[in-house]
């Protein structure tokens, strides 16, 4: 009986058809009933110094993540993030199989061919059927998110900067109905450069983002009116931040040999990865491809207001603010010791 039982569990060879359907070594994950609340912990960020080299400790407070409708973290409930059919993913894929959603709704290849790319991605965006409004009630943010209304989060964090003895400056951030579908980080090795390169896309869609400059419950920051007067409110705000276009302008993460941090987006056309000059025809081909396909950066705020938004009560309404279709031709950020 035991022997016959074993025979039923025998390993079966996969035929070619079954084998060919298997590809991409990766796994997906979703967060089921997640709630995070760090209000009971003391978190301090150090090593950020002022002009005279003194440490300015930053206390992290009111850090929470929960379901929407939390009223700035006061009423936290668990939330599902990611869907079983559109989960977070960590995969190792070939450059030619990865796609990026261009602003006109086309999926294009941005990573070079013949490289293995390690990708960490947020739930994918959906074009066509099943797409969800990225910001509810605001069509301009698009309707190609995969996360539904119940899979959005409220997220908040407060930073207390202890600038000097007796003086603490505060930034209190509260996102409501935040979703980050379509964000990713892709990393691979660039052979001619001999270093790790990548491309990143950060998509943030929020029904609102409030920045308050005081700690709730302290002097002049207790009543709703006092709090509003010290708040900058961004409503229906989204950002698609694109760093790098793998084919011709990979994002270079680097530490220089003298120990300084360098973040660089090289000029896509002038030099090849190994530093040699390129002929004009090749430069033209690369430039046309770059302008046609490199993902752009957009930052759109449907309404930005300071305080109440009304001049008569000391506020101001800045209305609609946007940066759209921004393409970075060259960027180099380096740290320096002061």
């Amino acid at each position, binding site marked *: *009986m035991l022997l016959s039982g074993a025979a039923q569990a025998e390993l079966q060879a996969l035929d070619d058809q079954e084998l060919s359907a298997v590809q991409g070594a990766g796994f*997906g994950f979703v967060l089921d009933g*997640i709630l995070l609340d760090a209000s009971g912990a003391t*978190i301090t960020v150090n*090593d950020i110094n002022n002009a005279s080299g003194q440490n300015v400790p930053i206390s992290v407070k009111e850090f929470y993540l929960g379901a929407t409708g939390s009223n700035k973290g006061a009423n936290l409930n668990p939330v599902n993030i990611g869907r079983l059919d559109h989960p977070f993913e960590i995969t190792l894929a070939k450059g030619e199989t990865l796609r990026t959603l261009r602003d006109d709704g086309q999926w294009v290849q941005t990573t070079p061919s013949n490289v293995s790319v390690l990708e960490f991605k947020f739930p994918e965006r959906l074009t066509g059927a099943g797409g969800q409004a990225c910001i509810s009630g605001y069509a301009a943010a698009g309707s190609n998110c995969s996360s539904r209304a119940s899979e959005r989060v409220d997220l908040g964090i407060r930073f207390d900067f202890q600038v000097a003895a007796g003086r603490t400056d505060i930034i209190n951030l509260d996102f409501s109905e935040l979703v980050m579908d379509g964000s990713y980080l892709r990393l691979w090795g660039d052979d001619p450069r001999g270093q*790790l390169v990548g491309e990143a896309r950060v998509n943030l869609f929020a029904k609102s983002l409030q920045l308050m400059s005081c700690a709730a419950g302290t002097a002049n920051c207790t009543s709703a009116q006092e709090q509003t007067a010290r708040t900058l409110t961004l409503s229906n705000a989204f950002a698609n931040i694109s760093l790098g276009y793998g084919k011709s302008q990979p994002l270079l993460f680097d*530490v220089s040999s*003298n120990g300084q*941090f360098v973040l660089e987006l090289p000029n896509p056309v002038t030099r090849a990865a190994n530093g040699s000059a390129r002929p004009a025809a090749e430069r033209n081909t690369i430039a046309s491809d770059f302008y046609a396909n490199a993902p752009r950066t957009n930052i759109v705020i449907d309404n930005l207001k300071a305080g109440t938004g009304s001049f008569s009560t000391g506020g101001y309404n800045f209305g609609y603010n946007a940066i759209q279709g921004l393409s970075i031709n060259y960027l180099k950020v380096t740290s320096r010791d002061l």
Partner: protein
Amino acid sequence: MISKVWLAISALLAMPAFAEMQALDDDTLSSMNGQGGVYLSGEFSINKDGGVLWSKPVSNNPSTWTASQRSCANAGATTPENCGMRVAIRSEADGGWYVLDNLKGVFSFEGLTLRTRTINSGFNGDGAAFNQDVLEFGLPNEVKFKDGSFAFGVANQGGWQNKSLSVANGGNPSYQQTNIFSAKIDGTIRMQGNVLIFPQN
């Protein structure tokens, strides 16, 4: 008397026969569902009292340290502190290093679970179509940190060297490390929910 003893002994001998392992037939086996899982609770402490590479000096001033001493207190602090673990990664053939430094502290958790779970319903309608097994990490409801810390920085050497000491004294004046930021964590963080992990094509 003797017969009673024999009876008892023979009963003992006979007992194991009742407890003998029986092979399960296929029907019974196929009706078994994975009931396994692990419930973990415990404490994880890393370099709480400093690592083995450096001992704690008396002062926080690097120029007074010996070759085997290092303090990881903030610059300008009056009292020295033990140093935690250091991990350095280089992403360019001839470049500098990313450093995760001074990683130390106590991390305790009660009720971290690990099990498999079949999902074939729920999830706002996604579960039925999914119909698959997943690996479920159940987060503990509370995670406690005690003196947890880490620093993130960049350096021109993987290993730490004291730039305030001459090479003859075991230091390296050309060593350069810039900490971008460091963090300290103390207290309780509430973390609830499950992380569901599954293969993805």
